[in-house]
């Protein structure tokens, strides 16, 4: 929390606000205007990407609650998203629930599943927990492809597209509003979560679990709560993907998915909500940027263009490593640096 000249709070409420300074509120307002205006001048291609970013933001914030804020490494994000997606789809198809109710139920079910998979954290820490969640992810993948009675196996499940107030959300433009609402709601929830006792307990467990238990935090319950909260949002992201694509296939929820989400929060910044958004945006847009680059150089250098689709995976790895080596705190820190620079601009204090 940085201070600013000329800003005086006369009430505690305004001092404790999420955005106590005018500059923050102006930035947030400008961003909100951009988000609201975006679909009216963006093409379907960009709208589709924006939807993917919004959904990925939900999932990344969820994972960041667990990994970044509570320090429990999970390679099971893909599995949790799968639970959300399949549950949301199957509640509608088999029980005839409206899509909103299915999504809500799916989130709750995923939270329960997450709590169950969080049980190993009772005994395991760090590396061992990561390997345990890896096993859970593999078992979930097997269940998706082999438990044909429920998941339809390798066949895809086709869903009806959701409708709101009689408007079918079957286009990127219509779905955009739902996705953005979900992302904004998740961000707001997470931002407030870490101002409550439960959220502070998450951070305490991450930083020093023994000290946390000494000051009265029930470490095990806190970890389970973190797993539940995190997988609630993983489930939401999965359910949104299911309804956005109106088709559920297991390929969307593999170990690759877990790794991509981990990459988002690493690149964005562990333990940062805006970082989750930055990371989700960068990692989601990266393949699109490489594809565009490929089209751009198609004429001039066809050899390079032919190589680019394969290079995509390598670039993904390079981005992760560059961030880990040069800016472990991620895009969130870089953005913070930019803000800090302009905070005192043009009177920057320089050490030469």
């Amino acid at each position: 929390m940085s201070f600013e000249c000329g800003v005086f709070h006369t009430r505690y409420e305004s001092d404790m606000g999420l955005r106590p300074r005018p500059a923050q509120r102006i930035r947030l307002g400008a961003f909100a205007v951009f988000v609201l205006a975006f679909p009216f001048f963006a093409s379907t291609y960009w709208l589709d990407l924006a939807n993917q970013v919004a959904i990925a933001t939900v999932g990344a914030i969820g994972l960041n609650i667990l990994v970044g804020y509570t320090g429990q490494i999970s390679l099971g994000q893909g599995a949790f998203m799968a639970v959300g997606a399949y549950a949301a789809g199957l509640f509608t198809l088999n029980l005839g629930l409206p899509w909103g109710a299915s999504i809500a139920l799916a989130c709750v079910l995923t939270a329960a599943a997450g709590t169950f998979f969080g049980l190993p954290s009772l005994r395991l820490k760090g590396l061992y927990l990561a390997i345990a969640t890896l096993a859970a992810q593999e078992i979930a993948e097997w269940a998706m492809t082999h438990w044909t009675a429920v998941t339809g196996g390798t066949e895809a499940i086709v869903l009806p597209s959701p409708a709101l107030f009689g408007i079918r959300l079957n286009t990127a433009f219509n779905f955009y509003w739902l996705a953005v609402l979900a992302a904004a709601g998740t961000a707001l929830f997470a931002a407030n979560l870490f101002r409550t006792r439960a959220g502070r307990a998450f951070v305490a467990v991450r930083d020093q679990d023994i000290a946390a238990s000494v000051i009265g935090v029930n470490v095990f319950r806190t970890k389970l709560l973190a797993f539940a909260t995190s997988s609630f949002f993983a489930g939401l992201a999965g359910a949104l993907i299911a309804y956005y694509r109106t088709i559920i296939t297991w390929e969307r929820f593999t170990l690759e998915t877990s790794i991509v989400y981990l990459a988002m929060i690493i690149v964005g910044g562990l333990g940062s909500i805006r970082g989750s958004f930055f990371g989700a945006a960068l990692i989601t847009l990266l393949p699109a940027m490489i594809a565009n680059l490929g089209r751009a150089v198609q004429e001039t250098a066809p050899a390079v263009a032919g190589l680019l689709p394969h290079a995509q995976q390598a670039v993904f790895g390079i981005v992760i490593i560059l961030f880990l080596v040069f800016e472990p705190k991620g895009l969130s820190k870089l953005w913070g640096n930019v803000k800090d620079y302009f905070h005192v601009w043009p009177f920057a204090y320089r050490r030469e």
Partner: protein
Amino acid sequence: MDIFLQLTVSGLSTGMVYALAAAGFVVIYKASDVINFAQGDLLLLGTYLVFFAVAQVGMPWGVGVPATIALAVAVALAIERLVLRPLVGEPVISMIMVTIGLSSILRGAVNAIWGPAPRSFDSFLPEGDIAVGPAVLSAGRLLSIPIALAVLAALWLFFRHARDGIAMRAIADDQQAALSMGISIPRVFGVAWALAAASAAIGGIMLGDIVGVSPNVASIGLRVFPVVILGGLDSIRGAVAGGAVIGLLEVYTGGYVGHGLSLIVPYAVLILVLMVRPYGLFGKEIIERV
């Protein structure tokens, strides 16, 4: 009975490839506490490098295999120097992610250079079958078992008797004490990565010979985790035992039970071991408990 024999041979030969990959993982973990998610991709690299050396350049096997190992070692040394060294002392999550990033780069590079289509080369292991009673066993698979065991035994002897091996054990035991005794930690980390790459390259060469050259080779990387957890994260003997057990379990479930259960049996074992005996069969009984 003949099916049992065939499954056993096939399970053991797969298991020994797992053990080679796992031994590399163990060496790196033991020396530098890095959890290497790119172990499978080092195998992949070995497979494609030997394909390049033997099938594309046309080297004879006697030259191609050492050349492959040398190249793999060079890549591993570069990885250690450029990527791992700046991250010494970072938290577990960074280590996991950095090796995942490496795995992605290696896989992408292999795909970019050789393409995703499966390839093949002329086998160097004998191709025929050997009839043992009623069972028909693949000679190549049979022969791969002693080769792998010899490599693993060499690794084990290295840890026991070689100067760098003992230095590695000293570092694993107490880094500061080792440092004050004049052991060069960067050197030892480099040796660890070189050994891991060499053992993975040999595993990759054998895998390319038995199963064929394809990007799927990298999927072995994930099988390393059940193996090392079962055997114990810091034990070469454990890697051999774990590899054998996991390899056999896989083919037996595949052969007798089916339903694709062989895909998850290793992970079920993994969770069981983590719950009951997290340090594995041969591991040191120190584990971070909550």
